């Protein structure tokens, strides 16, 4: 089987392309030039829409379709917000893109901004990506110097400013309206919807929020065409009229108890098992896997028996996970205590809950307290029922919260208990057990 030729990561080992000259020598910005000369903004949108590209940030919403939600004939300003907050644990694909191929991301930003008639693109980047931020800023400075940002890009009628805006280590800034609030200088409390950002977003103007990987895909789609993009990945399930397919290639992150943690670009639909065995080098130390998360903390857990699911937009849902999420796979081995793993995730969500709405603020804290008590050896069987119930009822899916953090907090809890119930029950009866728990220690209560 021929290995997939990377597209998004094709310049990974070619650092000379990080600067403008090298990128252009590699054929970069020709697509932008052509688009500005030969395509209208709406034509660019149509190409992206027809390609079937779905957002890579975790929600998987069709990108081109989202762009069409902007009000027609709006006098402006219109904003593009690039969501490089990438704080979903175990995820680092955007980091690779901005560190290794900043101009690909920027070409995508400018193309997308042109398509949506944006006047300014705010590049919201998490604080922790210092190196990537500086790389992007250098690339932006190069573009301004070359007349490829600012007024009349490449001599066209289109003008765009790109502003880098650094975060301050808060996960909820990755939620699109949390990002917008943070950009506006306030606490990152996600907004109620409607209105959606396309109608009323940053500074109350029409705004599109896109992920950097999504935008990098835009360049390649406009360059090679939607048909090419559709030749990769998984077409829609003919039995499901609402399935928009899983086209294109995806950056998959592998981490945890594997021999070769890292990033790999593959057509969408690779199974978790293949990703682990072929690309991740298999489970470390000759051990077997106990389970994994298929797409970042928020998606919940798969058991080893479920590793044959395809990692596309539909696959993880078939085994009760929330979805593909960020396609960041973290595997834990058979010696790992699921209670420790769950504790780690509960601690994360309680720490990162913005605190605005009652079910999440109180629910994430409560779930953490219960799990901590279980770890202290004072858990009861009914605690499992309470955890499952609380987890089931917080989130935008039951409609009880403002944003999806609560869904992400609940999914690991309920999938852990439902899929590893026996291990929980044993833990309740017998405590942590005698074996080493793979380096994860009991945390003191309230340790955050």
């Amino acid at each position, binding site marked *: 089987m021929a290995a997939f030729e990377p597209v998004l990561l094709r310049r990974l080992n070619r650092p000379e392309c990080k600067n403008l000259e090298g990128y252009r020598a590699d054929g970069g910005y020709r697509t932008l030039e052509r688009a500005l000369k030969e395509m209208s903004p709406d034509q660019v949108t149509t190409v992206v829409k027809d390609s079937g590209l779905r957002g890579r940030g975790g929600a998987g919403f069709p990108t081109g379709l989202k762009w069409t939600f902007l009000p027609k004939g709006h006098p402006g300003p219109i904003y593009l917000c690039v969501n490089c907050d990438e704080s979903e644990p175990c995820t680092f694909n955007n980091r690779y893109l901005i560190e290794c191929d900043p101009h690909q991301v920027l070409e995508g930003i400018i193309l997308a901004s042109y398509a949506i008639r944006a006047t300014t693109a705010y590049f919201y980047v998490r604080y922790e990506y210092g190196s990537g931020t500086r790389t992007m800023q250098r690339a932006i400075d190069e573009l301004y110097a070359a007349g490829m940002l600012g007024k009349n890009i490449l001599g066209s009628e289109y003008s765009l400013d790109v502003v880098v805006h650094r975060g301050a280590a808060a996960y909820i800034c990755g939620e699109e309206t949390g990002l917008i609030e943070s950009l506006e200088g306030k606490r990152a409390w996600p907004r109620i919807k409607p209105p959606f950002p396309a109608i009323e977003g940053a500074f109350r103007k029409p705004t599109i929020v896109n992920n950097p990987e999504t935008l990098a895909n835009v360049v390649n789609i406009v360059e090679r065409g939607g048909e090419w993009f559709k030749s990769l990945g998984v077409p829609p399930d003919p039995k499901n009229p609402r399935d928009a397919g899983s086209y294109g290639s995806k950056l998959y992150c592998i981490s945890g108890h594997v021999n070769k943690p890292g*990033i790999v670009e593959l057509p969408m639909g690779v199974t978790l098992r293949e990703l682990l065995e072929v690309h991740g080098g298999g489970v470390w130390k000759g051990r077997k896997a106990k389970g994994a998360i298929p797409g970042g903390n928020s998606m919940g857990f798969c058991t080893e028996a479920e590793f044959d699911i395809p990692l596309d937009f539909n696959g993880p849902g078939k085994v009760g996970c929330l979805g593909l999420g960020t396609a960041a796979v973290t595997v834990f081995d058979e010696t790992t205590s699921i209670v420790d793993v769950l504790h780690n995730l509960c601690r994360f969500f309680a720490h990162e809950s913005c605190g605005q709405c009652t079910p999440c603020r109180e629910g994430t804290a409560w779930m953490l307290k219960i799990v901590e008590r279980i770890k202290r050896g004072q858990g009861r069987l009914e605690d499992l029922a309470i955890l499952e119930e609380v987890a089931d009822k917080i989130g935008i899916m039951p409609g009880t919260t403002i944003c999806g953090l609560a869904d992400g907090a609940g999914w690991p809890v309920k999938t852990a208990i439902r899929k590893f119930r026996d291990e929980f029950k044993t833990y309740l009866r017998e405590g942590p057990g005698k074996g080493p728990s793979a380096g994860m220690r009991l945390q003191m209560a309230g340790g955050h």
Partner: protein
Amino acid sequence: MSHHHGTREVSPHAAHVPPGPLPADIREQIVALLPRYPSKQAVTLPALHLAQDRLRCVPPWAVREIADILDLSPAEVHDTLSFYGFFRPASDPLGKKRLWICRSLACALRGADQILDQAAHKLGVEVGGTTADGAITLELAECLGACEGAPACMVDDEHIHHIDQDGKMDRLVEDLRKG
């Protein structure tokens, strides 16, 4: 990520926090950012970063001065400041370098919780605290996005992978102490 719940005592390093006003160049940089955004309030986060990078904390007088530049109340600036757990009060400023140790899943699966404890022990501080010589502040971090290099840590805003390798943490701490 430490939130100042009022449980931490005043650090001895608090004595070194300069008094106001903001240094002229910092103030200029803040003002220079205003044209990039349609609202003044949007400059809040960049201004807080500029202040803390220089002052190693954001003292109340800086909050007031930033509020004044941005036409906000000091409470509004502080509201944003305290949300992030990133910015330090004058009672507990940062050391010269900030060492963050990731504790999220990928790193925890490779011993991050122990590494954090060991680092605290080695530096003689609690998590969130600053060494006596003012060189290093030890923080816990949620996922740094360096998972392929787990267990990972970050010095200020630069990642360091595989901090569990033999002697790597010791050497790092030594380098940080030398400043």
